[in-house]
């Protein structure tokens, strides 16, 4: 039972259309009409609540376009100014991801039902994980700025908690899906719990763990870029400044550099995963 998902939802391989459904009777439309009506009512109530109207949306669309036009061409000369803070952002992401991943290992083992046999242990562990994951990273950052003061430390702390929630959830799901064969064999020859984990569980999930680590790192680089908005270090500080000055060309440059770095990380993790899997 995992009520909260953090990864893209399970892809539905092999489920295409109604293959295998023998009944050719026309499905009743009542249910879909009811669902549609329910959604429309919800949307209408939401629009009422937030004073958003369709006409506003139509008038807002050109505003979107205007912003996009102002962003181009990006201010290339700004690159020299943003390079150092951008590297700080990457450093924050490296530390946050690694420390979060280290913390995630024990709790993921605790949360998987096939390692921790006792319900009294793994259900509270999962509950804790779900609670950690309900809080967005920027909120963590705002709280840690209140605790640690302005600076990169608060950002790293926020990223640690965020990565911890993400990786432990992904990891415990992989641990639950491992092949029980080696585990049974080890129990049969009398391995203790630690040996059992070391030689039965860890070899089966290492590759996945590394791919989750890289995925989280990528997410964190994107996230670390905005932590500066609440004063938690990194490139976000400059981003707020240029947005305040309405220098969208410079903001675009910052975003483009983030995109390049993310693409590089993407490429590296693709190559690493090719080697591993």
């Amino acid at each position, binding site marked *: 039972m995992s*009520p909260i998902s953090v990864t893209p*939802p399970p892809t539905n391989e092999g489920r*295409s259309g109604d293959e295998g459904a023998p009944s050719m009777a026309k499905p009743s439309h009542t249910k879909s009409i009811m669902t549609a009506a329910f959604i429309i009512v919800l*949307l209408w109530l939401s629009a009422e609540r937030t004073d958003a109207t369709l006409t506003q949306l139509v008038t807002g669309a050109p505003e*979107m376009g205007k912003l996009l036009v102002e962003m181009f061409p990006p201010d290339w000369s700004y690159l020299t100014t943003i390079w150092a803070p951008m590297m700080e952002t990457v*450093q924050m992401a490296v530390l946050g991801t690694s420390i979060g991943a280290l913390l995630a290992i024990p709790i993921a083992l605790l949360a998987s039902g096939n390692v921790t046999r006792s319900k009294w242990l793994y259900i509270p562990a999962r509950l804790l994980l779900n609670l950690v994951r309900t809080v967005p990273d920027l909120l963590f950052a705002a*709280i840690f700025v209140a605790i640690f003061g302005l600076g990169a430390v608060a950002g790293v702390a926020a990223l640690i908690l965020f990565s911890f929630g993400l990786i432990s959830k992904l990891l415990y799901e992989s641990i639950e899906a491992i092949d029980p064969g080696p585990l049974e064999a080890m129990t049969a020859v009398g391995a203790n719990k630690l040996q059992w984990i070391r030689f039965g569980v860890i070899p089966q999930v290492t590759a996945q763990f590394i791919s989750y680590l890289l995925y989280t790192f990528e997410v964190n680089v994107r996230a670390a870029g905005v932590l500066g908005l609440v004063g938690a*270090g990194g490139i976000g500080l400059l981003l707020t400044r240029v947005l305040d000055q309405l220098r969208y060309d410079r903001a675009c440059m910052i975003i483009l550099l983030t995109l390049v770095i993310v693409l590089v990380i993407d490429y590296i993790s693709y190559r690493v995963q090719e080697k591993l899997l």
Partner: protein
Amino acid sequence: MKNNPLIRRPWLHIRWWLVAVVIVSLYVWSFTGIEFSGIRENAGTVTVAILQGMISPDWDYVYLAEGEDLLRGMIDTLAIALLGTFISAFLCIPFAFWASTNMNRWKWSSGVGKFILSFIRTFPEIVMAIMFIKAVGPGAYAGILALGLHSIGMLGKLYAEAIEKIDRGPAEALLACGANRLQVLWYGVIPQVLPEFMSYTLYRFEINVRSATILGIIGAGGIGTPLIFALDSRNWSRVGIILLGIIITVSVVDIISNYVRRKIV
């Protein structure tokens, strides 16, 4: 470990050492880059205060007769997430068809579509919200537009992947019977991808609820505004109740959405 293939091939050994050196230097570089000296002395007391605030929250704040309370803040947050998701679920469809390899005649065309989606994804919603505040003024509406635009990046990508996975059979059969392109799309493609589209949209809604809780930090509506005020004024019991409100709301939304998603697919 005598028959380990790694040992018989020394160049592989060297490569592992190189990897280790790269990783170690990455960490050295990261640790030297962050200043750890700037931590406040009262960090401990503040942490304790926040935890105490969560244990004994300001229950009165849940409902205030004059408005600006937790309940209304959370409803605003949910409304922003719902409308933002709705907008992006429609806007991303053309992008999804553009980016999917099997709906394009040329390979470069889908590559361009994919790059645009990637570019949109890199734009954080909070940055978009700041820009929309400049364009349409502060408030929930800026938040809705920011979520609506930002979500196109991820939804477009997921939709495109769903389109790429479809079974060509029905579409070819329709073509053979002389259906036009629109009919092929409507009867051959849409029914196959609709459940996945809905599932991804719900998934994005879960994410958007989380994002909507922070949009208020920069004034784009929702519960974030009272939260940042409470943090700034060190009103820890209020911070506590708002955090509890966020945790409960997000959990409930997740549970419901997961249930519905499992029904759909």
